[in-house]
């Protein structure tokens, strides 16, 4: 009996956020006046663009480290790789693959660093990973803004700011649309970048496979309880670092896929929002800070970007002011993360209180809780 109510409650807290989102979107779609073709195209493009980034968040959640806001480290690694590939003038599929290969050592290094830092901040991984992202962004800025040119040699002078050093604020990438256009299917007015979806599918397969390996099982065990895992002989700290490294490397690939779709890189602000949008997407898909799967990632990406697409137009038609819709969707993206974090933490605290009360054998207080 107790188990049933628990499951019911879990289902409810699990689907509050996606349901809320679905309702908001269903209400705003007719108001936004967009055609079905336009919306479908938009959603497909955004799914192809963002899913990989969202998938990169799954493994740290499995390892009990919450949402890895430090995925921006990987995003930065991807951007650095793309800048160099563009500088060397390598375009096409070769350029894209080279960027992916180049991003890996940077991601590995940054991921190891992030994992080691987070091991020293157990219990507050999320806030630490977030601030760590800001910190590394500062170093990233320093390297690109001051060292590129004089210290790190560049071949193409048009990538460098007119003052003689530092990478330009926007970089036109040589790998624009490479993956999307590799196999591009057009049904009616709707275009589908098949190759990109194949890559995303491969990432999903990787995650499914990985969860079944020894390391994957270890990660799950560490996520359930670090003390128990340690007693069972699992190297807890090492496993946690590995989950962050994989997440960072995947985020690097994700950012490369994202940017080949966009075509231009905002050198100094491109990675800022990556973690927010990825986290919001995953949580909108019904994931919690402790449990996330591939369906959460894909459904969430679709739903979140549907909202992102229709909200400014809907807001404009309702209030007559374009800015309101703009602000509303930013508010919703942050609000969704906030709400999901609160729901999860609240539930955890309630469970803990209940355990304590039942341990004391005091049944009256449970009702009040």
């Amino acid at each position, binding site marked *: 009996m107790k188990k049933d109510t628990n499951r019911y409650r879990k289902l409810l807290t699990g689907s509050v956020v996606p349901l809320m989102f679905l309702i908001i979107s269903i209400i705003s779609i007719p108001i936004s006046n967009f055609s079905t073709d336009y919306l479908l195209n938009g959603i497909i493009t955004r799914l192809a663009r963002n899913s990989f980034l969202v998938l990169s968040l799954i493994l740290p959640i499995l390892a009990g480290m919450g949402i890895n806001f430090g995925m921006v480290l990987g995003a930065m690694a991807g951007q650095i790789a793309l800048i160099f590939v563009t500088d060397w003038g390598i375009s096409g599929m070769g350029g894209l693959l080279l960027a992916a290969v180049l991003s890996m050592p940077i991601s590995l290094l940054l991921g190891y660093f992030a994992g080691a830092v987070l091991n020293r901040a157990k219990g*507050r991984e999320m806030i630490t990973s977030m601030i760590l992202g*800001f910190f590394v962004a500062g170093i990233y800025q320093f390297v690109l803004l001051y060292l590129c040119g004089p210290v790190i040699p560049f071949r193409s002078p048009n990538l460098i700011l007119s003052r003689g050093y530092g990478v330009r604020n926007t970089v036109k990438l040589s790998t624009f649309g490479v993956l999307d256009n590799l196999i591009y299917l057009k049904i009616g007015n709707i275009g589908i970048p098949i190759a990109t979806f194949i890559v995303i599918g491969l990432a999903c397969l990787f995650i499914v496979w990985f969860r079944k390996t020894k390391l994957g099982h270890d990660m799950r065990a560490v996520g359930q309880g670090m003390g128990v895992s340690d007693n069972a002989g699992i190297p807890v700290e090492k496993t946690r670092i590995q989950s962050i490294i994989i997440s960072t490397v995947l985020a690097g690939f994700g950012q490369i896929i994202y940017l080949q779709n966009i075509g231009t890189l905002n050198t100094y602000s491109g990675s800022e929002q990556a973690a927010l949008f990825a986290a919001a997407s995953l949580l909108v898909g019904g994931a919690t800070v402790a449990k996330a799967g591939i369906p959460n990632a894909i459904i969430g990406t679709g739903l979140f970007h549907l909202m992102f697409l229709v909200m400014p137009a809907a807001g404009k038609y309702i209030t007559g002011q374009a800015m*309101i819709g703009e*602000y509303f969707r930013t*508010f919703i993206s942050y609000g969704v993360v*906030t709400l999901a974090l609160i729901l999860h933490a609240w539930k955890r605290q309630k469970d803990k209180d209940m355990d304590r009360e039942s341990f004391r054998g005091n049944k009256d207080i449970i009702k009040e809780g």
Partner: protein
Amino acid sequence: MDKIKEFVKDFGIARLIIAAFLLLLFAVAPIFGVRLDTSISDVLTRFGMNAILVLSMIPMIQSGCGLNFGLPVGLIAGILGGVISLEFRLVGLAGILTAMLIGIVFATIFGFLYGELLNKIKGDEMIIATYVGFSAVFFMNMMWILLPFRNPSSVQGYKGEGLRTTISVEEYWFRAISNFGQIKVNKYLTIPTGMLLAFTIMALLVYFFFKTKLGTAITAVGSNPDYARAAGISINKMRTISVVLSTVIGAIGINMYQQSFGFIQLYNAPLAFAFPSVAAVLLGGASVNKASIMNVIVGTILFQGMLTMTPSVINNAINIDVSEVIRIVISNGMIVYALTRKVKK
């Protein structure tokens, strides 16, 4: 030798490096044509502008709610106070004091709700506070457009509705507190007595509050919740009180900042205050669960000193503006460092 080691350990290696860096900047400043008295004047003014915001960290740290990344909640209350006082078109001290009073009322309400929320999610306060701060700012972005403000100096000129991004308080209460008892030593050095006095009053209030029975109870909740519970202290109530206090001080702090700066900044502006204020108190030697007035004073001087001195001295020395990057790296590095330190029980 042991004494030196102990001193370094007590003072904190990070603080020592920054302090040494700052001293070095002051020492070499005259070589690069930066006037020392101008620099000191700047540091004092910035100290007056920011110290109360940093002070607002203390109650929440003491009660165990962690670093107040949700500072924007308090700032919004203060900003509301500011723009409402402009609606009444009050000038001078009356204007700024009204702004503060209204801000305090809003901050009490917001702080209460914010505190109740934080009570439901113990253990995850910091990440949730950060996101509550973000959400509050973006929610208010819509409100700044929709709320019916009428004063022509506050609303956007061409439409007559929706608040401006920055509102000048020049004709109302610009420097109302800064000018109070201001001492001009020479052309370059001014001592903002009013602001320093205001900070001293606030700091003393906080200091003596934590000496009262209520204040001690809050500290007890922060340092040992189980003991506090056993002593019959209501943990949730104490935490809520501390959050309300932090929010109220934050609201007063932003009004102080505005009157000296001369502008009320709206929309995304409150986001720019939380992380620097957190970094400053940490730089002053506070930890995630312990902070004192001394930490606030030392931290604000070091942090603002660094912000003042790096652009002027380093730009003059090497002609490259690295101050922004230095600010990002040091402030966030400081926060990461504090979060990864083993908590002393």
